[in-house]
Structures are given as C-alpha cells and as structure tokens.
C-alpha cells in the first residue's frame, strides 16, 4: 500500500536545522549577490544607456580632470574621486538664493555665475579613460554601485550627487520626452532662501519614486529630440 510519511514528525531538531540552513543559504546568497556585478542589472543597463544618450546632440562631452557632459548650460561630471553638477547661478539668485546659507556640497561661484553641487565618492575610481565615456562611467559604477539608480516612473537611470541632487537620463530616448533630467532636493535650496517654486527654467513638482514613495523635487528636463 502506498503511503506518504510526514517529513519531520516529532523531530524538532531537524526543523531547526532546516530553518537554520535555509536562512544561512539565503544570507550567503544575499552576500554573494551584494558583491556580484553580474546581478547588478541596473548598473549594467545604466552604463549601456548612458553612453547612448550622451552620444546624442546637443550633449557636449568633455574630458578634463574627469568626464563632463553639458546640455543646455547644465553640466554633469565625475572625476576619480567625486561626482558633480554645474548649474547656472542666475535663476537661483533671482529666486532669492543667499549663497552664504548653502549646505555643504553646494557652492556658489558668484564671479563665474555657476552653482556647483558635488559629492565625494566612497571609493576613488583611479584614472579614467579619456577616450571612453561609457567605460569610465562603468568604472565609476563598478567601484561605487550604490551611486546609480533606476527611476521606474520616468523610465530613467540616475546618478546621485550625494543627498542633494540626481542626474537622470532616459532608458529609451526614442520613447521618452524627458531624455535628461536634473533633479535637486528643494529643502536645502529653500533653507538657502530660494523660492523653489520660482526658479526660472525649473519646475517644483512631486515625483513618483516607485514602491509607493513620492518626493518633491526641483526639476529641469531636457528633450534631446
């Protein structure tokens, strides 16, 4: 007669062992995955799409201390030890910016008329390849994977400039009218006296960040056509 036996009747130690082994396996898997570039599909695709978008007109890539891409007067760049955004200062000044009240990581160059937002990298990338923008970003992401993100609501990848700003680009520019987005956190600007709703060329809006989370951001969007 066919009979099916209970897997573990009356043998609690076996259950404890099974649970422990299962949890240990999951922990090991999580640790392995944490260091595994192969499963970092966001990083992988961010690099791939970054190269494609930055090759489009009118983006101007340039290599100095590191890489810098400029579009409509706003530059995003990264060197071996930091990432930054370089923005025109005037719209912020006109909206009431008091440069002396800017937070750490934010700097106003009143003489040059620029506002710079920068953040240091946790792990320096070492020398970047002046001939390969995407390869340099790949190096940046490989060393500092947490710097890259995916913004599902807009179909964008992004690089975080510390806690202050995001530089985003479209996953598929042909299907997106916001090919590049510069996003600034409004709170530090507001504390520096900026009327975040009155910055010329920027929009203060609530953005769906995914997983049910929304965030108010000061946005500048660029359609590369």
């Amino acid at each position, binding site marked *: 007669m066919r009979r*099916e036996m*209970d*897997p573990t009747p009356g043998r609690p130690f076996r259950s404890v062992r099974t649970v422990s082994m*299962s949890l240990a396996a999951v922990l090991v*898997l999580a640790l392995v*995955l944490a260091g595994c570039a192969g499963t970092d599909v966001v990083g992988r695709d961010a690099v791939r799409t970054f190269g494609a978008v930055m090759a489009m007109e009118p983006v101007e890539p340039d290599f100095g201390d590191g890489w810098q891409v400029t579009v409509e007067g706003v530059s995003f760049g990264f060197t071996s030890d930091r990432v930054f955004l370089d923005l025109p200062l005037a719209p912020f000044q006109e909206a009431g910016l008091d440069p002396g009240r800017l937070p750490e990581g934010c700097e106003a160059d009143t003489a040059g008329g620029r506002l710079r937002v920068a953040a240091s990298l946790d792990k320096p990338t070492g020398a970047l390849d002046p001939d390969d923008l995407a390869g340099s970003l790949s190096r940046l992401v490989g060393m500092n994977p947490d710097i890259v993100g995916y913004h599902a609501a807009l179909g964008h990848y992004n690089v975080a400039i510390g806690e202050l700003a995001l530089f985003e680009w479209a996953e598929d520019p042909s299907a997106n009218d916001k090919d590049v987005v510069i996003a600034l956190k409004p709170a530090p600007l507001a504390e520096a006296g900026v009327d975040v709703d009155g910055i010329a060329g920027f929009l203060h809006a609530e953005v769906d960040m*995914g*997983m049910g989370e929304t965030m108010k951001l000061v946005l500048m969007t660029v359609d590369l056509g």
Partner: protein
Amino acid sequence: MATHTIRVGGMTCASCSRAVETALGRVPGVSRASVNLATEKASVTFNGGPETVAHLKAAIVDAGYLVLEADETTRDAEQARRDAERKSLRHRFLLSAILTVPLLFLAMGPMVGLGFLVPASLNPMRYPLNNALVQLALTLPVLFVNRRLFAGGVRALLHRSPNMESLIAIGTSAALVYSLLSTVSIFRGAFDRVDHLYFETSATILTLVVLGRFLEARSKGRTSEAVRKLMGLAPRTARVLRDGIEQEIAADRLQVGDLVRVRPGERIPTDGILLEGGTSVDESMLTGESLPVEKGPGDPVVGASLNTFGTFVFRATRVGSDTVLAQIIRMVEEAQGSKAPIAKLADIVSGYFVPIVLGIATLSAAAWLVAGQDLDFALTVFVTVLVIACPCALGLATPTAIMTGTGRAAEAGLLFKGGEALEITHRVDTVVFDKTGTLTQGKPRVTDLVSAPGGSADILLALAASAEHGSEHPLGEAIVREAKEKGIDLLPADGFRALPGRGIEARVDGTWIRLGNRAWMTECGIDVDTLEGEASRLSDAGRTSMYVARDRDLLGLVAVADVVKPGSAEAIRRLREAGIRTAMITGDNRRTADAIAREVGLDLVLADVLPQDKAREIRRLQAEGRRVAMVGDGINDAPALAQADIGMAIGSGTDVAVESADVVLMGNDPGDVSRAIAISRATLRNIRQNLFWAFGYNLLGIPVAAGILYAFDGPLLSPVLAAAAMAFSSVSVVTNALRLNRIRI
C-alpha cells in the same frame, strides 16, 4: 450485506470526503458509502466478501487518498499518528513562518515605509534582481516543506476531483510562475517588474494554510476528548487472588472468573459480581449520576467505577472489549464517526464547489482583463478567489459538532448511537415514558401503614412481615423489606399458604395472620367496614392496599406501590418547559396510572396497554403528526423503542432495550431525557451556526475576492488576506464546535 470501516488518510476538505465516497460508491456491490472527514473513517455497506474490501481499498488509493493500515487503526497508533501529524504541521508552520517573515519584509517593507531597513544590496529599486533572487530563495524552502499540499492538490486534479489543495496549488503556482517570469524580465532589463513579484503571496498563503491546518488539527484532537477521558478511566492494573495469593497484574490480562480485590479509592478494573465485603461505588463517570451506589454481595460492579468506601472482592464476569466501558467507548466512537442527515447539504454543495470556484476564478480574471485591467490585476483576482474559496470549513461544520456533541453527552452518561439519532432527538415533541422502572422505581414499596383504632403501626408491620416471610410475591417481599429496613424483628411463622387472587395466611407466634383483599377477609368472617374508606382512598392514589387481620380481628391496612422516582416530577417539568408533551404508557389500570400521572404532572396517560400494543400506541401518536421519543428499560419496551422516532433505553436497561434504542441513558434518572434533548438541540444549533458561517463566508468572500467591491470603487482583496480569512474560517468552525464541551445540561 456487510458493513466495513476503513480509515482514510490524506483528506483535507469536504471535496476530499465527497471524492472518496464517490469512488467507493462505484465499487460493484456497494449499497452505501459514508465518509467522515473529522474522524477520517469511511463506512461502507456492501454485498460481497473479503475481495470487495480489497476493491474498496484500491478504489480509495486510486482516488488519490491513503488507506491507513490495520496497525494504524488501534487507538494508541491512531493517537500517535495524530500527534505526529500535529507536530509535523507545527514544524512546517514554524519553518514557513520563519522564512516568510523576512520575505514579507523584503517584498513589502519598502512599500510601507520600512525600506530603510532593507539591506542596500537588496534594495528593490537599485538591485531588483538581487531582491527577486533572494525572495525566490526564501520562497523555495517554504514550497518544499509544504510540498504535500501541492502533491495532494495535483493528485486530486489528475483524478478529476479537485479539492481544497488543488485550489491552493493552482493559486500559489500561478503567483509563483508569474513571479518567476517577472524575475526573468528584470534580468532582461525590465526593472519595473520588481513591483510585479508575488513570491511573498505564494509563501504567505502556504504559511497561513498550514497554520490553519495546525490549529484545526489541535482543535479536532480536543473534539474526541470525551473518548480519551473514558479510556483514561480504566485502571491499568488489578489485584487478582490466585491460589489464595494476591498478585498485581496488568488489567488487560484479567480473565473471566478471576477473583479481584479492590481497596478504597481504587477504580474497579473490570465488570463483575461482588462476592465479599460491601462498599459504595461512584459510577458518575459512566452514568452521570452523582450519588454513590451501595453495593453488597451479589450486586454487579462496573469496571472503571470508583470504589469510595470499603474493601471488597468480586468475580470478573466480563473483560476486555466485552466490558460496559469498552462498549460505551465503542458506541461513542461509532456515533462520532457517523453522519447526521444535515451533513448531506454540505456534501452535495462540496461535490460541485471546487469546479465551480475554478470557473469563477477564471471567469473573474478574464472579465477584468476584458474590462481593461492589466494581467497583474487579473492574476490577483484569480489567486484570491481560489484561495478564499477553500471548502474546508464546509467539510468540518457538521462532523466536528457531532463529535463534540456526542462526546459531551457521553460524559453525562447519555450515549447517542449516531449522528442521525443526535439530529432527530432535537425534533422530538412528545416523550412517552414506560412507567415501571422508568418513571417509577420498578420495585413495590410499602407506602402506608394504617392501623385499626387502638392499634400500632409497628406491630401491624411486624405481624404482616412475619406472615409474608416465606412469600415470593413482590408485594410480600416489599413488606418484609420494609420491616427489615425499620429494624423490626420478625416472629417465627409456619403454616404459610398463598391463595391466588385473595391473599395469604400464616401462623405467627401461635395466631393466624391473614393478609389480602376484602373478599378474602369476608370469606374469613372479618369485618373490614372500619377501614373501607381508607382502603378506597389508597386505591384512588394508585396503591395496592391489603387488609391485615389476626384471627378474626382486623389490625389494619398495608398499602404497597411502585413509587415514583425522586427525579420524575422534575424531569417532566423540564420537558414541559421545553415545550414537549409528556405521556406515560403502562399496563396498569387507569386509576393507578392516573394517580402517577397526577403525581409527576404528565400530559397524557396511556393505561391498560398490553406490552405487545405499546408499539401500536406509539404509531398512533406518530399518525397524529407527533415526533415521538419512547423511554423504556425492559424487553417489552423494545418494539415501542424501535417504532418511536427516537428510542431511549434508561438505566442501562436490558440488552434488548439497548439494542433497540437510539439513545442509551446510562443513569437511572428520567431527567436524562430532557438533558439528551437539550444536548441534541445545542448540537444542531451549533451545526446550523457552523454551516451558516461556512456558507456565508464563501458567499461573501468569493464575490469580494472576484473584485465586486473594486468595481464600485471599493478595495480589492489581497491573496494574503484571503489566505488569512480562509484559515480563520476553518479554525472558527472547529472552535465553535468545541463550545459544546462547555454547555451545561
């Protein structure tokens, strides 16, 4: 026709028991198959030999269920199996829960503002593939430990008799497959698919299902507490006197004829006849009667009753499975395993339930897709309908209440022979009592001593008892017993002579003492005029009065009657309060019967009924549209007990009466009749509550799961909540049935 009971394993819901019934019903020669989910027993009536039993077992296995071997049907083995099952379920639940909690946290934490607690390398927005893979890794062990659910569900599907496990298997598989496809999409770059992972749904459903099963198994174990209590009454050892030497042996090695010594405070190890010593015995656990019963040489003693007072020796007359306790346990178990007619409704519904639910789930999902919702929404609806519609509560609604109700009744000394008896009893509107031994003591007693003017009652009794000392007539025995109980010394007598239809005479202390009716007194030239009025009064009260004379002098009257039991009037009052008409059936004359009816407060008296006509009287009441319970104790009551809608044998009765009865009242108290009706009513009320809950739960739950509220801007039920509700429904039904253990009767 033969009836065979087979223990069936692997059943989880009403659909399973229905499938087994159908499979058994298809075996050639089977006339009736009844499967009880709660006791896991199939009772099959068939025309055939041992080969048919083999076919029956094969049919069960072919239907996808297990036939438990003979060694597993012994009580200890069954208990061990149930304990192992409970432990297994507990371990499966704990293991599942330990893995499901972090899984839920990983999947839902970021959605409820706890994303900051999720390790950065598993952040679903930044590392969606890592997140998905770890979710999968947490889900797989949960699927593995609960693989039996899948196996059972798939097996039932393959046998085209889908059950609750089929619904769970389909629902969780759908969520799992969809999540695996989403994981592949994430790998291929569709990172937003991280929002479309339902691994936690699969794992949570399984965890909650196994939790429900565990709680259900724990509760079901308590429904058979009554039998366990009864079994626990039997002492494990006995002191046997063999060759004059007392030795302690295992009680199950006792043999008929063994002499057994029992000391105060010990339980009597088996049934027998008391030989030496005297005691009082507490039989309350068997009969429900709270007062100890006095026992002396010649009295029967019942195994498992408690010796409260003296040391005595008895001879074992029944051992092992022949004892009263074993018979009670067998009767209770059979009753608990039987099916009440009310269960048929649940059986019929459950037969169609699962296929209909599968249809509703598919149609709902398709309708939402057509209405413009995405595949995620349709999948959620599909899984939720399958999960919430589990019919386990439906299958448990009746048998758990029957088990608990019959068990509770057994504890009170009320043995229902089956679920049908339990159900019909609650409908009884007329209770007909046999008189002798039921409402009355069944033994005549002296009720009145009326001495002639100037005489003494004690002298009257002493002379009458002395004269009757040699009599074997019940009336004479009653007079002698009364004298002995009053401590009156009997005088030497000789020349005893019984004159049928008139009385007796005997020479006591040199004078002739005569007892008898008026005709006998007149024949002897004795004037009874002075006490004629008193004799008439006693006769009107239903008593048999006898004149007593010494030589030609009238000494007085002795009245004898079968007196009413102390609890009879109260029993009748309680029945009347419950809206039940009460009647007494007796062969006694109208005047005697009416006297008793007045004393206890009966509504109807059926007097001068010959034993063979009792059944006809019951039939006549039934023809008036009454649902009749007959309460009797003797062989002559058997036809009436069988004819009545419910036959109740009282005071352990004769074997024939017990055989003919549907309910055995172990005690000798007519109040047990109202108690039996009360527990029947409570059980049926409980069954109706359970069925209402089980049906109502599905009637409400399925439309909500299908998204009817969502269609009117309301919420959509999640599969996880559906699984919780499903587990709760089964547990609530069993818990409600367990309330019967606490009812006062």
